[in-house]
């Protein structure tokens, strides 16, 4: 500030303030506890970015708010003094300083953001080159599955075949493979459909359709996301990833779950009156449990009718959803509608 030299007697005080601000900022950056559990490989990347931003923001916040509060106390008008203050109209070096510092900070943050986005897989939005390569082959298998005889054929090879299920159109948007995995197809591919007011998960190799998302831990999962009616937004808060489900346009999210457990799936885009009730769950299994789940649901029904793995009433894990179960529930009619 212009008068810092007069009001701050020595560099010692400035140094002390700087140290205190630095300590508080670092502490708050590390310990703000604002973000939920980290369940994906992307989550620590995003959280580290937030930690850096929270640290810088805390420091700037303390300095600016401190200067405001200090000014209000120290430079408050007192008594009968009706004269004006010292007419300081500017300080060119200082103005350059506080233009340059934020400029450096935001350029740094910009570069860091691009790097994080790259690590998250943001630049791979074609679904991986392998997918495109096997396109014609997978169509063959897909047609097999449609026949009655397909069920016995799937067996152990279920997951591998699911990989072959290339999406009808290549997703252009969303989060794809991380740079390390860019040449590998995802290990599990699931088609996600958003509709008022539910998410449907279709396991293309297994002819299973579920209202909850089951995935194996530690496996590279790709979701091909689309919407039937209006825009929805597929959000996994614990995975720090989100992608709008757009009618008529395919998008994707690719992730590897790092823990087993059950976590919320949230619709984040206003999609109508019961938008708030459009929630589901992602259930992350150990790989062998996941296989068991697949087998169980494959065997559970005949091959003509796709499986509804979850009763719609079970979707609502709390009672508050009960009044809306009718509106949002999945029934056979809805399923029939959306099945290709």
């Amino acid at each position, binding site marked *: 500030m*212009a008068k810092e030299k007069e009001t701050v007697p020595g560099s010692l005080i400035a140094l002390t303030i700087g140290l205190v601000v630095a300590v508080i900022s670092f502490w708050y950056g590390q310990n703000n506890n604002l973000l939920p559990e980290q369940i994906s490989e992307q989550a620590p990347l995003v959280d580290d970015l937030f930690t850096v931003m929270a640290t810088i*923001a805390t420091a700037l*916040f303390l300095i600016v708010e401190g200067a405001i509060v200090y*000014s209000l106390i120290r*430079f408050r008008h007192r008594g009968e003094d009706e004269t004006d203050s010292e*007419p300081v109209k500017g300080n060119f070096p200082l103005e350059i300083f506080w233009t340059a510092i934020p400029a450096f900070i935001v350029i740094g943050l910009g570069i860091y953001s691009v790097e994080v986005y790259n690590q998250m897989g943001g630049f791979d939005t074609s679904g991986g080159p392998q997918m495109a390569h096997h396109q014609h082959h997978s169509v063959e298998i897909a047609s097999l599955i449609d026949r009655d005889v397909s069920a016995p054929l799937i067996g152990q090879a279920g997951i591998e075949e699911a990989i072959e299920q290339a999406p009808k159109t290549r997703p252009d948007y969303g989060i794809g493979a991380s740079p390390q995995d860019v040449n590998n197809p995802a290990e599990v591919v699931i088609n996600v459909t958003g509709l008022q007011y539910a998410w449907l998960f279709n396991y293309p190799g297994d002819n299973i359709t579920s209202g909850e998302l089951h995935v194996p831990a530690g496996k590279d999962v790709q979701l091909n996301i689309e919407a039937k009616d*209006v825009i929805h937004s597929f959000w996994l808060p614990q995975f720090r990833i989100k992608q709008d489900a757009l009618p008529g346009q395919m998008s994707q999210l690719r992730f590897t779950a790092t823990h087993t457990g059950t976590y919320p799936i949230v619709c984040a*885009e206003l999609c109508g009156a*019961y938008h708030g009730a459009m929630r589901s769950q992602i259930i992350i299994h150990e790989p062998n449990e996941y296989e068991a789940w697949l087998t169980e649901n494959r065997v559970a029904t005949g091959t003509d009718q796709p499986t509804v793995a979850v009763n719609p009433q079970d979707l609502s894990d709390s009672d508050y959803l009960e009044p809306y179960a009718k509106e949002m529930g999945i029934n056979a009619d809805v399923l029939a509608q959306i099945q290709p």
Partner: protein
Amino acid sequence: MAQAQIPIDSQINGAHQHPEAWSWYHYFWYNTDHKVIGIQYLVFSFIFYLIAGVMALFLRAELYTPDSDLLDPNVYNTLLTNHGTMMIFFWIVPAAIGGFGNYLVPLMIGAKDMAFPNLNAISFWLNPVAALLMGVSLYFGGAQSGWTAYPPLSLITNNLGQSFWILSIVFVGTSSILGAINFLVTIFKMRTPSMKWDEMPLFCWAMIATSALALFSTPVLAIGLTLLLFDINFGTGFFRPEMGGDIVVYQHLFWFYSHPAVYLMILPIFGIMSEVISTHARKPIFGYKAIAYSSLAICVVGLFVWVHHMFTSGTPAWMRMFFTISTLIVAVPTGVKIFSWVATLWGGKIRLTSPLLFAVGLLAMFVFGGLSGVTLGTAPFDIHVHDTYYVVGHFHYVLFGGSVFGLYAAIYHWFPKMTGRMYNEPLGRVHFLLTFIGANMTFLPMHQLGMQGMPRRIAMYDPQFAGLNQLCTIGSMILGVSIIPFLINMIWSWGWGEQAPRNPWRSLTLEWQTTSPPAIENFDEEPILWAGPYDYGVDTQMEDDEETVEELLATVKSEVK
């Protein structure tokens, strides 16, 4: 500027075409005086602030519990859509630009009126028409697809309400375009001859940036909404995926306007800040040129950041990255302004009047909103918090903590000028305290809610978020109560307040050099600049004049009394 002169306008000469002063009923009809229009805008928009505020209280009451138990979910969506729409298009934009812009710009540059007084009156009267259309929309259940009106939701939800909503916004937009042309011509052509560019009050600089932005961006919104209207009513398929339409194109059209709209709502407020802080801190504005040019920088860069509202939508990676960088760059000119105001406070002789308290409150809250804005600008983090309460918290810090605090500061600061009466200071301070506490209590916890997993625009939510939501609701009740001392203060002071002198704040800008309230044509003689707008504490001794500013002001005072 050799001779220091103060225009004395106590004698109204009989040659004028209009009455000597406006009577109350003149304010309720077509009138081309920019001051009448300014007050019309302010009172009109304030009514909508109250209506939209009551809507917010209902929304918060609904969110007190996780269940959807107070309002029908469709009504909830109507309220959330119209709360946003009205706060933006019927309160902040008309109050800041139409209200204070109209009232202050001609006075500040020493003009008798705006360049096109009739166009000005027409611009205002488009707003009541728009309000009527909005009323019709609400009668039919109102728009329910959010203020963003994204198709396909807006195409399939309550078509009648949505259509009238679009018509209403198109009228407001037209008013905004006409107003912008008027401001630009007025400021470029009608400045008093002795006023150089760098002697112009910063509020006028802000109005240049605001008007340029409105002129560039509003037509794009009008196009987007008109196409939407055609899709709803005339069978076109611009935004109908099943007919080959592209819904993401709508989002581009919408945000190309609506992101600059954020700056439409904050740039005039930035102008107000410079006036209020400098005057009440009795100190020249720190870095006049930096503040003036940073408004223009925000205006230019602000046209190229709109995709940061669409990071999770159908946007390719390069776009997400490009707009991350451009968004972050806006922080630099905004930071320059913040630092300059803090530096203006530093070393001043700060009067803790109501306008200054609100201006400092703005500064305190805007710093927070700006910092959370930087975090939102980075695509990787935004992907997590987009469309969550984090965003709701952020934009209320900049639009409530920023724009609304600024409007309150302006109302208190220019109340004596507009009404000729002083407001009640203790009531003003109570109002500030309640507003500041209420705003932080309502909007701070929202950041945590969003990061933890609560999306926005929902009537029913996961019970784990109940605690913080209750805190927000209690905060909103404090905000609701905070309006009471303000209303009492305004109504009582306007009718029965102490008579205001022409320049109670001893301010140096031109509007204070005429009577309170100003005569119908503002200045009876061409006003002459005898000091820069922020030359507080500057010894203004002229070469052939020994008088200082203080002595001049004393002369003015004695002349008025």
